[in-house]
Structure formats: C-alpha cells, structure tokens
C-alpha cells in the first residue's frame, strides 16, 4: 500500500465533487458535492500528516470539518429560505442576481 494511492483517490473524489457542483441542478446535491470535495481535501491533509509524522495536518482537518458544519448549516438554511420563497430547489431558477 502506497500513500501515493491515497492522493489519486482524493483527486478523483475531488473531481467527482467538482462535476457534481457544476452539473447538478438540485441545490441539495450541489451541497453534498461540496461535502465530497471537502472530504477529499481532508484526506489529503491526513495523508501528508502521516507522511511527515506531524499532527498539525489533523488539527487542520478538525477546522475544516468545523467550517464544513457551519457551511452546511447556513447553506441548508438558505436552501430552506429559497424553497419557502420560490417553491423550488432548482439552482438555475435562482437567478435574480444578474445584470
């Protein structure tokens, strides 16, 4: 088992997350894709932590998780608010912020 493989895995998952964000119209799934991306990054952090035997990478992971939690909470609240106003979770329909 090479630590190198972890990097490949994380880059694949990250790309999948990117594709999810760019392609899906359901805002919930967009948010979940963002979670995928964050997890990919976390994995990266931990791999390097392991590589250098330095625990700081793990500490940063904790912070990322914290931010993710906050982001999710606020994001979902926004989703709920949008849904309540526009009766949709379709991200393409929320397009008043233009011109």
């Amino acid at each position, binding site marked *: 088992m090479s630590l190198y493989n972890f990097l490949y895995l994380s880059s694949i998952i990250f790309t999948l997350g990117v594709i999810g964000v*760019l392609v899906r119209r359901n805002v919930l799934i967009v948010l979940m894709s963002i979670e995928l991306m964050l997890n990919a990054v976390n994995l990266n952090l931990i791999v390097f932590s392991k590589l250098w035997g330095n625990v700081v990478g793990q500490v940063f992971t904790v912070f990322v998780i914290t931010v993710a939690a906050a982001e999710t909470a606020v994001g979902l609240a926004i989703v709920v608010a949008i849904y309540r106003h526009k009766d949709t979770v379709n991200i393409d329909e929320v*397009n008043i912020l233009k011109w």
Partner: protein
Amino acid sequence: MAEYLWLIPTLPFIGFLINGLGGLLYKRITKKTFNRYFVSLVACGLVFISLILSTMAFVQLANMPENHKYIEQKCFNWVAAGDITTTGYYDRIPSETKQFNVEWTYFFDPLSAVMALVVCGVGFLIHVFAIGYMWDDTGFYRFFSYLNLFMFAMLTLVLSNNFIMMFLGWEGVGFCSYALIGYYFHKKSASDAGKKAFIVNRVGDYGFSVGMFLLFVTFGTFNFKELGEIIGKLPVEAHFGILSAIGILLFIGATGKSAQIPLYVWLPDAMEGPTPVSALIHAATMVTAGVYMITRSSFLYTRTHLSLEIVGFFGVMTALYAAIMGFFQRDIKKVLAYSTISQLGYMFTALGVAAFSAGIMHLMTHAFFKALLFLGAGSIITQMHHEQDMQKMGNLRKYMPITFWTMAAAYLAICGIPPFSGFFSKDEILWQAFARGHKFFYVIGLIAAIFTAFYMTRLMILTFFGKERIDPNVKEHLKESPAVMTIPLIILGILATVGGFVGLPAWLGENRFEKWLEPVFEHNYNNPVFAMHHYSHGFEMMMAGVSILAALLGFSVALYLYGKKGIVPDDEKNWGKLWKVIYNKFYVDELYDALFVNRAKDLGNALSAFDLAVIDGGVNGTAATTRGTATASSWFDKYVVDGLVNLQAWIVQTSSGILRRIQTGVIHNYALAVILGIVILSCLYIFR
C-alpha cells in the same frame, strides 16, 4: 444725628408697597379689594409720620448754628463707576480725572426743610381730603398707592443732595403724574393727557439731562454743596459760556416740569386726573419742582446773567400769557390750571431777578391757596356729580358754605389782597423785580396781576353767586361735603390766610422767611451784579398800594361784567374772534401737533417704509441677486458641466450594457468560471 432722615421719603414708599403691591396681590388671590379704612390709614398715617419727622428735623435744624445749617445722611454709594476726565472750567478749574460716584444721600437744609414741610403738610391734607373724594372709586387702593409713591418721589426730590438723585425724584413724580392723570384709564382723553404730560416732561428732561452732563463734565461732581463751593468762587459770565449753557439747559427741564412757555401744554390737559391729584401734583408740589431746582442751583444762576434773564423773561411771559388763557375757560379746573401756570410764572420771574427767597415764599403760599382752590373745586365737583362746567353752577354758596368761605380766603390770597398770604409773596416778587431794576418784568407782572384778579373774580362769581343754573337732578342732593373733606379745607384756609406772615415785607418788619433761607444762598451774596437799589420804606409801601390797586381794577371789571351784567359762559361766545382765540388757547396745541407730533409720526412712517424698502430691500436684493446668479449657474451646471458628466456616464452605460450579459445570475455558470479559471491558471503554471 437725624438718623431718621431717610425715613421721611421711605415711609410713603412703604405705604406704596403695602397698598399697591399688597392690594394687587390681595385682589388677585381673594378677588376682593383692600379694606378702604385700612388703605386710608396706611396711606395717610405714613404720610403723617413723615410730616412729624420733617417737623422734628426742622426743629433740629433751627437750633443749629448759622454757619453749619444742614443735616446730611449718606445711605450708600448709588452709582459708583470708573474714572471720568473732567474738562474743567476755562483756566480757573483745571482738568482732572475723577471717580464717577453718585451718592444716595439725604440732605436737609433750610430750603429742603421748607419744601419738605410744604410737601408733607399739604400732601397730608390732600391725602385726607382724597379719602372722601375717592371713597366710591373701585381703584381706591391703587389711587392711594400712587399718591404715596408720589410723596416718596417728591420727598426724594427735595431731600436729595445731588442732581442725579434729584433727577430720580424728578422723573419719579413725572411718572406718578402720568399714572394719576391717566387714573381713569378707560377714558381715552385721560390716558392721552397722561402720555402727553410724560412726553412733554421728557422733552424738558432732555434739556435737563444734557445740562447735568455738561455740569458734571465741567466740575466733576453732582453734589449741590460741592458745586456751590466750586462755582461760588467763579466770576460772573457776562456772555454766553459754559455756565450759561448749563443754566439754560437746566431751565429747559424746569419749563417742562413747571409748565412754562413753551412746554406748558400738558398741564391744562392734566386736569383729566382726579381733583386731589390736580391739587397735590399739578398745583401745590410737583409743578414747583422746577422752581425748587433753580433755587437749589442758585449758585450757578447768579453767575450767569444771561440765563437768569431768560428764566425771568419766560417766567413773566408765562404769567401773563397763562392769565389771558384763563379768561374764558368754562371748566372750573381748567381756569385753576391756567392760574397755576400763571402763578408759576411769577415764581420764575422772582428767580429771574435773583429774588430766590421771594420765589420760594410764593411757592409756599401758592401751595396753600392753590391746593385749597383745587380742593374747593373738588368739593364742588363731587357734590355736583362730577360736573365741571361753570355754566351749570351758580349761587353755590347757599349749599356749600364752608367750601365757599374757605375758597374765598384762597381767592383773596391769590388776588393779592392784604393780609392774605398771597399778597405778601406776590407783592414781594413785584417789588424785588422793580427794586432790582427789572422794570419790564414789573410792568408785565402787574398787568398779569390785574388779569389774575379778573379771572379769579369771574370764577368766584360764576360758581358761588348769581343765578342758579344747576341741573335739577343734581340740585336735589346738593349739600355740603363731609367733614373728611371740609376739615382739610378749613386748615388750608387758615394757612392761606396767615401763611404770608412768615415773610413780612421790610416796611412791616423783619422778613423772617428770607433770613431762614439765608444759609442756602451764602454763595450769592458776594455777587455785586444783583445788588438791590435802595428805596425808602415809604416808596415800597406805595408800590404795594399799586399792586392792590391793580388787583382791584381786575376785580371791578369782572364784577361789572359777571356780577352786574350777569354774563354767563354761554354768552361769552358772542364776543367774536377774541373769545374764540383765547378759549382755544391760541391754538398752541394744534400748532404743536402739526409741527412736532404729526411730523414725528410721518417721519416714523416714512422711515418704516424706508426700512422696508431700502435697507431690508437691500438685504433682500442681495438675496435676490444671489438667487439669480445661482439660477444662472445652476443652468450652466445642469446643461454644460453636468452634460459632460452625463456623456461619460452614457458611454459607460452603453458599453456595460453589452458586457453585463456575462452576469447571468446562474450559479452554475459562475462555478464553471471558477473552475475554468483554476484550470487556465494551472495551465499557465505548467506551460510557463
């Protein structure tokens, strides 16, 4: 010694506070007026105490040595201000820098003593009389508070030791006169008369104050005593100089207060006030303030020939002129008013010939008999239900004997019939004028005496004798006035009869009055200009006989016209132009109105218009100009400056209209742009 001096004026002031302020608040709180008995007790009682105190001071003064015959009591420094540089008097008195300090000091010398006694004495009697006269009036307390305030001001005037404090009294009595003339303030004529009195007096005071400024700037003090010592050492000014200027300016003040030509016009109108007021203020006391003031500054007048001549000339002319105006007045009080002006003219004549003690003596006797005449008139007026027209009187002696007899005494006094008081004083004036070489004054004075006898006789006949022309309704209730009114009449009658004996002419004995006043004029006697010519007693006696004859002449003419022929005021109208001009007082009031009052109003109107149009117009014009400029520049701003700005904005707007399409508002596009950005940047890094 004489620690109570300050109480003499202050007691009436306390009365003013109690009655005036107290009465006002009492009425506001309880909606009731003060008890009349209480008001009269306070008002008369306090004046009576002042009278007693004055008498005590008088007695004390009489016992003092000749060379130190005055009492002074300093209360406090009234106006203590900074330094002032005096100019000095030519090269006799050098310029110096002095502290400007006016003391509040009471000063009691023989002259003040006479004045204080007259004011307190006559004032007290009139207060008592007024109780009866004003009993039914709703403003009883108000009336007495003003009367007390008047007593305060008048006593301050005569007891002051400097000009400024005197001026306080001077203006104070002026204000009381204003308030009391306008006492029946619902009558327009009354309030008009009050206002007129105040403003005409102000004109006089204008001269008075300028005179005081000049006096202080020259000599650096207002104090009578100090001024007397300084000026007493100066030579006589033969021509117009500073002293003459001061003298004339002060005399302008006196003409206002003492109703001399040209400022007499207010006094006849002042008869709108209640009769006790006319008696107290406009006959006995206030109007003589001018005489007192000039006597007080005799040290100055004896050093300026010119101003003395002017004083005498205006005095004697007033005596004559006012006597003429008194001829055909129908209002009993108006006749007395003109008579007062005329008698004041006599006093000024006396001052003009430097016979100060004669002037003061006439002041005193005049106070007695004129107050009596007014009170008698007041007694008649109350019983006639406020009828003042002599046309509606006649034969009143039957109904009002006490009034008649007392008034008769006063009548004889004013006509100058011996041994009544007026004879001694008036004759003294005429004699002094003659003896001091002023023959012109003497002749005019004599003519005025004839006229006086004429109009006074006319007044007596029309009211007390002849046919009864009384309104029947009035007649039913016609009776003698109550004791509260007649007793002052009787006392004044006695005074008017015997008052003259204090100053007997030289051919009858010693003139004690003149001797009493001697210390006041100590600075004058070394003045050779006013030396008396010496005549024998017999000649003097003969001249007195001439005076009596003059009075008899006037008497007999009046007796013939009004007694024998039975002319009544209504008939006088047939006498044509002469009557008309005299009855209308030579149209002087109309002349003054046309010359000064209306012109001042016109000027005021014109200036108001000027203020609005030109000065304010200038301000508004500036505003309008600014606004015009602003409008122009705002146009420029809008179309030129702002136009350029808008052009730029237009360019930006148009180009951005194309570019803004990028902002789709779709989140996916933005996210894609982010990713593309990362990809491109990474490519740049890789293929660097």
